[in-house]
């Protein structure tokens, strides 16, 4: 009875919010908190969004490490690291108590990643952005794939992002010159234009003493972003043909000694950031190039500007953070304005590109930057990869994601590693995969 009453109340406030909308679609955020909420609770897993808000949201003042102020509203940052699923566990518990929590303790904004976005997007906890007050006009410059990620099974958009993370193939210029005779992106592209030529190039690289990729998992996203169906169909796990292609390619490359079976982010993976690691290419978005490839360390390839970028065999994306408004928020206007300023305002977004080297989710802003040579990346030896990223972001297709993606992707890579290393046959490895899925999602157990 009590929960029914609560639900009725909730939907009432929601409807009221719909009418109130986002105010005049104003220019400045300061003093916009007209909904009466005194505290804005934001749930995140790292400092990234906080630093974007601090630097770019008009009217935000930092108070201390975990609090800030917008007008009269106190902003509370609740940051739980991603490690071992801790962020999601914490968020789940808080969301399940959202109805009972006091107004000032309710979550107002939470952040999600693409791999598990649907887990939240397909519930009533994530508010439709239209109900918050964003209009189609506001959202028209965003890349479509960033909206696909946050669209629930009924076609309702429930979150937005300020960034896009299309990826490219990042290659070692020295190896390209030595083996392919040129380090020009268009020449290299010919050698990796599709997976057959990719495999042929891998052979040549092996003969010259290079690993084609650092690990088998490097190419995984490129395949998993281009699947023809969802992981789970009619309550059954379905292995897509393109994922099977990844398995076959990886097995061939492992058997030929052209790559390794290390995990992403392991020391064996990052060894290729240095010349001695002898790795030809990585697959990654702008943030990988700028922040993760040891560009600050003398002696790394990135430090010497020794990487090049080209489109590679297929388009893909990696990473990204999406903002969701949470049902029960008492700061709807402010939530809406934060979304609007950071994910729809071209001026602010161009600022983010300049200041933080993010690839932002705004087509006109990115096209301007792509045409401007001052946006060239030093780690790429002065190449400006933004035109490639722009093209890639248009091509990303996320219509085939499901709420089970994170678990399925992780467990498949883990299980197949045994097949690649020769510790199990394909069937045994696949059986281990289904077993692990059954443990994670008992409703899918066979």
């Amino acid at each position, binding site marked *: 009875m009590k929960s029914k009453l609560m639900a009725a109340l909730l939907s009432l406030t929601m409807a009221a919010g719909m009418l109130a909308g986002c105010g005049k679609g104003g220019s400045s955020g300061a003093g916009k908190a007209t909904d009466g909420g005194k505290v804005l609770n934001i749930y995140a897993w790292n400092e990234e969004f906080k630093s974007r808000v601090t630097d770019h949201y008009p009217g935000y003042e930092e108070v201390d490490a975990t609090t800030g102020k917008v007008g009269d509203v106190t902003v509370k940052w609740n940051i739980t690291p991603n490690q071992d*699923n801790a962020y999601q566990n914490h968020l*789940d518990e808080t*969301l*399940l108590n959202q109805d009972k929590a006091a107004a000032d303790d309710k979550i107002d904004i939470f952040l999600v990643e693409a791999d598990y976005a649907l*887990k*939240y997007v*397909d*519930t009533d*906890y994530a508010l439709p952005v239209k109900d918050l007050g964003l209009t189609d006009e506001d959202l028209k410059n965003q890349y479509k794939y960033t909206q696909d990620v946050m669209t629930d099974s009924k076609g309702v958009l429930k979150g937005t992002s300020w960034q896009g993370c299309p990826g490219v193939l990042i290659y070692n210029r020295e190896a390209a010159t030595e083996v392919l005779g040129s380090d020009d992106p268009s020449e290299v592209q010919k050698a990796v234009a599709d997976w057959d030529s990719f495999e042929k190039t891998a052979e040549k690289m092996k003969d010259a003493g290079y690993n084609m990729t650092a690990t088998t998992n490097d190419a995984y996203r490129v395949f998993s972003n281009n699947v023809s169906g969802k992981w789970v169909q009619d309550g059954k796990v379905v292995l897509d043909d393109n994922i099977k292609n990844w398995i076959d390619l990886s097995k061939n490359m492992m058997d030929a000694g052209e790559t*390794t*079976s*290390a*995990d992403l982010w*392991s*020391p*064996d993976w990052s*060894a290729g950031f240095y010349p001695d690691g002898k790795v030809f290419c990585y697959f990654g978005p702008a943030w990988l190039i700028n922040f993760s490839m040891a560009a600050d360390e003398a002696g790394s390839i990135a430090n010497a500007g020794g990487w090049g970028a080209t489109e590679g065999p297929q388009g893909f994306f990696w990473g990204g953070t999406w903002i969701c408004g949470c049902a029960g928020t008492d700061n709807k206007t402010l939530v809406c304005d934060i979304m609007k300023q950071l994910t729809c305002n071209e001026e602010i977004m161009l600022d983010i590109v300049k200041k933080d080297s993010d690839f932002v989710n705004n087509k006109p802003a990115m096209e301007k930057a792509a045409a401007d040579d001052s946006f060239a990346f030093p780690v790429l030896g002065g190449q400006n990869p933004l035109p490639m990223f722009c093209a890639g972001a248009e091509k990303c297709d996320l219509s085939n994601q499901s*709420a089970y993606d994170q678990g399925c992707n992780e467990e498949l890579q*883990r299980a197949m*590693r*045994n097949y690649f*290393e020769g*510790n*199990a046959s394909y069937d*045994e*490895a696949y059986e*281990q995969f289904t*077993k*692990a899925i059954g*443990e*994670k*999602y*008992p*409703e899918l157990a066979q």
Partner: protein
Amino acid sequence: MKKSKVVSYNKWGYIFLIPFTVVFLVFQLIPMVTTIYNSFFENYRSGLMQIGPNFVGLENYVTIITNGDLPTYFANTMIIWVMCFIPQIVISLVLGAWFTDPSLRLRFQTFFKTVIYLPNLIMASAFSMLFFTLFADGGPINSILMQAGIIGEPYQFMSHVWSVRGLIAFMNCLMWFGNTTILLMAGMLGIDPALFEAAQVDGATATQIFSKITLPLLKPILIYVMVTSLIGGLQLFDVPQILTNGSGDPVRSSMTLIMYLNKHLYNKNYGLGGALSVFMIIVTAILSYIVFKVTNSRR
């Protein structure tokens, strides 16, 4: 009414028992009973959706036994425990015998006793993180072996069944042999020195003294050490969890029972997790009963 002249101290006994009883009830007995209760239900979370609790009788038990999980992971756990316990008990016995032998008069005894106990003070997770880095494909151990010319190319320690199991056993052995040594030493020091002297006078060799006097008299302590180590071994978790990044690879050959239990934490699967825990409770209870019997049968 005539007041008793004898002062009753009994109530103090009960009062002093309260803290233990309360802690035991709240933190042990109640969780144990709820675990058993939970094991009869289907009860987990799918995403943000709660499924159950629905009463399913013994279905959870049937599931974990028939799908081969429980026997497999129990076997893994036992194999690793044996690989760890045999070297550990041998080293501890030898060290214990040396330290307690008055005729050897080892110098710096306190120093050595401290040193062998030290590995136990390091956090298991830090310890296995260290080993993970040391034995990585491009790690220092591989570089040393390659530079010494022992192997031509890096040996993938984490990709072979017996090297992973061996590393886990080795780490556990290293962490616990100091503790075992100290327990055994206490046992050895409790043996009447007159027995050793008598044996020496009769012309027994050191080996004979060890096998005919020390070992038989040490039997209760040895059994105690073995059973507690077995209970500890059943709960083996942190070292393999960190070393294999929770996967128990290759092909789950180093996945232990508690690592498997931890898998059910992902979706708060109290049913299957509960069934597994009940199995652990039963095994541990049997082992504890053995200790109880052995330590109480003084003959």
